[in-house]
């Protein structure tokens, strides 16, 4: 079984500043994937970034980057140069490599102040 924990229900950031969202997970799997998804009010689930557990290098995608600490089972998301369009609910998720089932955290609502 996999569990994903997001301890920050809400985060606020000034436009152009940086915000970091925390995520920890627990899994008995040796091979898995980690993701951050964004859900704006339109409710569409948008993939932000992914990390393969076997890769030590942290994933980056434009203004989004992760800090993956495998031993600590930590997977935080950093949003740099925050934009108004970044305002959304962000979900951390873990996916098993054998059956691809996703387990989601509770989510963090990000508000961007102009």
């Amino acid at each position, binding site marked *: 079984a996999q569990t994903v924990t997001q301890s920050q229900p809400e985060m606020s950031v000034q436009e152009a500043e940086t915000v970091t969202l925390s995520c920890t997970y627990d899994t008995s799997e040796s091979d898995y994937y980690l993701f951050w998804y964004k859900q704006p009010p339109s409710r*569409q689930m948008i993939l932000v970034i992914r990390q393969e557990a076997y890769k030590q290098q942290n994933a980056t995608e434009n203004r989004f980057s992760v800090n993956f600490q495998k031993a600590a089972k930590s997977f935080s998301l950093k949003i740099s140069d925050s934009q108004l369009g970044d305002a959304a609910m962000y979900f951390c998720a873990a*996916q098993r490599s054998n059956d691809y*089932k996703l387990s*989601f955290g509770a989510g963090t609502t990000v508000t961007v102040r102009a």
Partner: protein
Amino acid sequence: SAVISQKPSRDICQRGTSLTIQCQVDSQVTMMFWYRQQPGQSLTLIATANQGSEATYESGFVIDKFPISRPNLTFSTLTVSNMSPEDSSIYLCSVLTGDNQPQHFGDGTRLSIL
């Protein structure tokens, strides 16, 4: 990535009735999943839709309440049966286009039961 069409986008239903949600993909996919997102909550996996066979349900979800079909590699339906107000949620389908790929989501169906 695959283009996923989910219908209807929203509906308001009477208690005791049933509604079928469709998920159509523009290309063949390896796996399809159905999730529920209750108001203000995270996503919970309902089941894996298996092509040509019975779906695999997660704990707490049963076939009589959430019958699922997947007749081919591009289409699946989820029926919410004998609805009650507690079934008011967003229902999302997701697809996996290949091994080691992230899941991509449809736009979701917002269901309200009166």
